[in-house]
Structures are given as C-alpha cells and as structure tokens.
C-alpha cells in the first residue's frame, strides 16, 4: 500500500496525481497528499511514473504499513521499479529483449509441476 512521498525529492509535477489509476493522491501545496490510501491497489505505477523516485509503496496490499523514511531512503528500493523497467534510460534499446522468455519459463514451471504430480500419483498407487 502507498506508504510515503519524500517531500525533499518530489519536484511537484503532480504526475502521480494524474496517473494513479485509483485516485489515491490529491495535489498539495508542494508534494501531493496521500488522500485515499484505502483505494490503493499496490500496483507500483506511481513509482514507475515518478521521475524523481520520490514515492515508496509498501509491499502489503491489505494493510497500511508504518515505515521509517530514512531506512527506506537507504534501502535502495526507491527508483528500483522504474530502473528495472528501463524507464530511467528511455534512449537505450533492448529493455524488452528478455520478454520472449516469459512463455517458455512459465511452461517449464508448469511442466515440472505436472511431472511431479504424475510421479507422486503413481508412487501412491
């Protein structure tokens, strides 16, 4: 669930207010205000769209989390989602070159589970 906006990092662009799909933020005087956290769907889209890496979304989607901003700042989590998408390097090509592996990896996992189940089912007979 949305946890924190770092006021000192925020540039006041209000992108997060616009792009949050569930209307969690209201524009504020400087940084936006987390106005409706109960509507947060923990999708991390605000982190992806924040060019200042000023937003932290907590991992638990069911409950608000108490966080220590300075621990989060030092954790390396800020900006990670945007970096992994390659959105901090828009001119660089190849961000989606591994994407084709999704299907085969998914299938491999499913096959492993199916084989394991067949083996177990036989051993029980």
């Amino acid at each position, binding site marked *: 669930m949305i946890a924190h906006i770092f006021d000192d990092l925020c540039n006041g662009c209000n992108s997060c*207010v*616009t*792009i*949050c*799909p*569930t*209307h969690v933020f209201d524009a504020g005087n400087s940084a936006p205000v987390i106005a409706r956290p109960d*509507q947060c*769907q*923990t*999708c*991390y*889209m605000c982190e*992806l*769209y924040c060019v200042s890496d000023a937003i932290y*979304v*907590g*991992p*638990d*989607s*069911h409950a608000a989390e108490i966080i220590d901003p300075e621990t989060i700042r030092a954790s390396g*989590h800020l900006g*990670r*989602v945007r970096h*992994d*998408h390659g959105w901090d390097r828009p001119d660089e*090509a*190849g*961000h*989606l*070159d*591994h*994407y*084709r*592996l*999704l*299907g085969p*990896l*998914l*299938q*491999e*996992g*499913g096959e*492993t*589970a*199916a084989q*394991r*189940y067949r083996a*177990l*089912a036989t051993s*029980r007979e």
Partner: protein
Amino acid sequence: MSDGVTVRADVLIIGGGMAAAWAAIAAAKTGASTILVDKGYVGTSGVTATAGPNHWWVPPDPVRRREIIERKWADGFELGDPAWMERIIDITWRTLPDLARYYPFGSDGRGGTYYSGVRGAEYMRALRTYAVAAGARILDHHPATQLLVDQDGAVAGACGHARLTGQDWKIHAPAVIMATGGCAFRSGLIGSHGNSGDGYLLAAEAGAELSGMEFSIQYTVSPAWASTRTLPYGAARYYDARGVEIIQPPRGHAHYQALGAALLEGPVYADLIDAPVELPPILHDIQPFTPPPFVRKGIDMFKQRWPIKLFGEGTIRGNGGLRIVDDMCGTSVTGLYAAGDAATRELVTGAISGGGAVNSAWALSSGQIAGAAAARRGLALRGEAAGKARMAGTVAMHPRLTEQPIDRKAIEADVDHHMNGYQHALWRSEGQLTQSLALLDAHWRMIGDHGRAQGLALVGLRETAAMVATARWCTAAALARKESRGVHVRVDAPGLDPGGNVRLLTGGLDQLWTRPESRSYAEAAE
C-alpha cells in the same frame, strides 16, 4: 460538485484498458470524432496495464489455424464459435505489429521481432500514444455513472463525474462502446480495483443482456499479502501449517480445491525450489513488479517459504460479460457495443478461461471491430439532431424509500466473501448458491431502497451497486446451469449435461432472469 460539462461526439468509448484503446484507435482512424472516458488513467488503469498480455498468435497457415480452432472449440466444451475464433486470430496477427511505432517490441532471439507478448505498462503507454495520434480524445479520471437512452431505446451517450475537477459531465454520442473490463469483486487481484462491473450495470439498465456469467470461477495464486503476476509460481510446492506437502494437480478446479481446502484450515506456504534455474536472475527484468512485494518484506522468494492466497478473478479470467448479438460486437441494445472483458468471451474461448492468449486477442479484435462499427453508426447519424435522451441510471440515484447511508464496506466484504470465498466458489451447489443469492438480493434492495449519492460519492456507491449486481447475475446463472462445464463446477451436478452446450443468458435488475440462448445470432438472422 459543480456545473456540468456537455459535449457531443460520434463515438464514445467507456473504459481505458487495451480494449478501449484499440477501439479508440479504430474509431478515430475513420475520421469519427471519438472520445474515450476512463475511470482511471489510460496507461495504468485496468488489468492490461499490470498484466503482460500474450496474444493468441497463429501464423496465417489455413491448415494450422483450422486445427487450432477445432481443438479450442472442443477444449471450450462446445460453447465457442469457430468463425469468431478465426476472425480474432486474423485481426490480431494483422494488427498488433502496427504498434511498432509506439511499442519497443523486443527480439525473438533469432534475429526477428517478438510480437505476441507485450508488457502491460509499456503496452498501455503505447496504445495511449497511438490513440491520441489517431485523433481520439482521452479523458482520464472520468468514470461513467450511467448511460443516456433516446426515445427509441437506443443508447445515446453517457454521464459521469470528473474526479480531478469535481465536475459532472454528459457526452451525447449515437454510438457507445462499453470496454469497462471484467469484475473480480475487489479480491485484490492485481490491477483490478477499478473493475467493479460498472459496465455490466450501466448496460443492463439500458436493457442489455449478459451471457456466460456462470463462468466466473478462476483464481490466481500469489503471496498472501499481495497479488502479483504468476510467472515464478508455476512449479511451486505447497505445504500446510505443519509443513506437510499438499498434493494437488497442477491446474484446474481440483488444484484450486486442494489449495482452497487447505487454506480454509489454516495458512498454506509455497516454496520455489523447483522453479526454472534461469528464472531468478532475470525475473526483475521480465516482470519488474513481481519481486518488490518479496524484496520489500525481506523475503527471498526463491529460497524461503512464504504464505499464499488465492485471489479471485471473477469475470476477468472467467469469461462472462455482455452478450454479443451480431458480428459487429453489438449488444442487445441499439447503439451499444461491447469489447474486451466487458463482453462475454464464450464466443472465442467457450466455457474455459481465455487467460493466457485468447482474452487479449479478443480485447484487441473486439476493440477494433466495435470501434469501426461504432464509427460507421456515429458518422451516419452525425447530422441528426440529438433527440431527447433520458438518463438510464437506477440504483443509488432514485431511492424508493427514505434516503439512508449505505455501509459500502460491509456490503463489499459480503460480495467478496460470496463470490471469492473458497467455500462458496469452489464448492458450488444449489443450497449454497440460493443462500448467496438471497443475501445479495437483500443488499441490492437495500441500495435501491435507500441509496442516494452525488459526485464522487455517487461513483463509489455505483461501484458497490455494480459489484452486487454482477454477483447476482453470476450466482443466478450458476444456479441455472445445473451441470459442470469448463470453469463452472457444481458439486451437486458433476459432469456434463448432454444438452448443456448452449450459452446461458441472464439479466434483469430487481427481477433477475436466465434463459438459454436458443439459437445463435447467425441462425436468427436468416
């Protein structure tokens, strides 16, 4: 709330996922003035944005396509329509590469381009850019709350509320496309918060019928604290609270039942020691949203055991929705079209889930088809003065009795429990379903008798009402289909009814009805 804004367009599209965007592109390309209103932001809202849709991708080899379609028709328990399948395979194959100007398609590893699978956030960002370039006007944070209907009963536009400005809006358009997605009853399924079944309710109020609503049992496994995409979990092993491995078939209803039964007893844990070895190092690169829920909790997802939950998917990866009555994606109401998960996907996937390939091919193709058809109607009627249109909204707008506050949280919790609760969804029976329906009916009456709201509060109350309505249609249809077919499983009616290969229609507001679709629309047209 402040003064309303009224505009006119040739085509109005309600929704902002891939189906809506593909519809906007098709409509705007014809020169029709096209407005798209989304509840959230086109780019991040809807399940498309958080998913990574892999499209049904079959090269134009007639023999292979026919084989695949025949197999799909049989796998779908004979409720699909081969002609529709062929159509969406073809449209998807021809259309998706158009996006190359806006989407950075990756390599296929053999010197070519990999088209079929796209990452949601980049896909929706590209579709937004494409739609705007094609001339569509996008209005973000403009949830629709009701349809406009003219004297002849044709849909003539919609009304809603602009949540960032606090203004109400009204848009007149002789052709409206419903692309509001499916409904998972706020199970927490990733990306689905805004998908509260609004489109089903709005359309039903204008007289539209639904189809396949009984096919609404589907789950996604995820860590208990957050729904994620499922790539890493294919080979997961599961354990009960004592650490005993739960033996379960790897997919299907029996898989959900085994995990659901264990979850009803206590926590269930997963480990991923059997995951493909290539996966851990590149997961963050393929699906950057999947690791943070673990990393930020300090859990090594590939080494530790962690508790799981099954998140209900309702009609998102189930397949019920608005009934399609012609080959232009028209609904049973003139002027109203349906695309994507808002429409039934039985035509292309039958009684089984279309997740994994078919649903996105359907969302793309139905969007393109509906967009072009709506534009033809919109352009043809452009010169005609807009007649008197009435607002079709009912529940939460005109209470029958005294106005009273509605406890939305309690009602939504009940809906979630009866639709996604394992004991209800995984062990459907006449008794269970009848009880659920009685309770849902009571909630429906409560909102209809006493609910009234305006502005932003109306958006929220209508969402609650739409989830109750959707739950009632799903439950009524599940009661009426007295057999087990595809993802609809009844413990008191296992097995197929030989005469059950007919689609089941449902609808109605205060009075629900169900009836088999006696003839296909093709036969009806003859």
